[in-house]
């Protein structure tokens, strides 16, 4: 057990990518980031007013959400490890 009374399996690998709800968050962040990148690829390959606005607005929003989710994972992990 560590200082936060969490099972060692939660801290052995460092971050908790492989464990519990934080892994789900990482997967969600990954999917959102992939979708955002796909909107960007779409606008690069066929630039029209619609694809431009989709990539800039929806793509940007998805990317921002994915970053926020990953920040949550990092913060949770650092707290588990007693860094924060």
């Amino acid at each position, binding site marked *: 057990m560590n200082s936060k009374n969490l099972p060692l399996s939660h801290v052995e690998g460092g971050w*908790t990518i*492989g464990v519990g709800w934080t892994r789900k968050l990482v997967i969600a962040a990954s999917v959102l980031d*992939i979708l955002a990148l796909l909107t960007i690829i779409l606008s*690069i390959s066929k630039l029209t*007013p619609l694809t431009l606005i989709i990539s800039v607005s929806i793509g*940007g929003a998805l*990317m921002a959400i994915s970053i926020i989710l990953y920040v949550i994972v990092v913060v949770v992990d650092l707290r588990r490890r007693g860094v924060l």
Partner: protein
Amino acid sequence: MNPFEESIKAANGGGLSLIGWIVLVLSVLCILLIIRIMVQDPKKTAQPFGKWLLLLIFFILSPMIYLLNFSAAIEDSKKVDFCNSCHVMHGYVNDLKDPDSQYLASEHYQYRWIAEDQCFTCHSNYGLFGNAKAKMTGIRHVWAYYIAGYKTPIKLYNTYNNGICLRCHAPTVGFQETEEHIDNASDIINSKMSCLGLDCHVRTHPDKAWSEK
């Protein structure tokens, strides 16, 4: 085949720009890396390498791709072909590219008085916020085109700003020495008098251009 195809393509800025290629390659690379990390055994993804890689992708590469794409797309959206991607603009662009057209916009295009981004050059104000304002108007156009609808015949939102014409024409001696320009200088500068119509200059676009498919 047109022997000048390559030159025409270069003049129109055709093909993907260097930034476009960088964005495309980085985007595909990021997607592949994310998938690779995600499909791995969860225990392996807890290794520092995978975590740092995801951190790099989420915090550095993805935002960088977004910003590069943003700047490239904003630049590419000035091109005539971009304006022509809405069908309501086809008539205007067809007239631009018609060598027999006598309309003012077409002559500016055919004789390359404006070398590139001809639509944008005449439809964006100069000054610090000219480009930004033009982009905001563009968003308004997209809203009208896809969602709110628009009335025909298409008209400008406001009186055309003669300052856009004067930016190129005012410094020329020929313009300065024309009697009509001198007599009406104040009204021309303040856009109270249009450069078009009367005995002055011909119209910019055909009246029915908006209805052409």
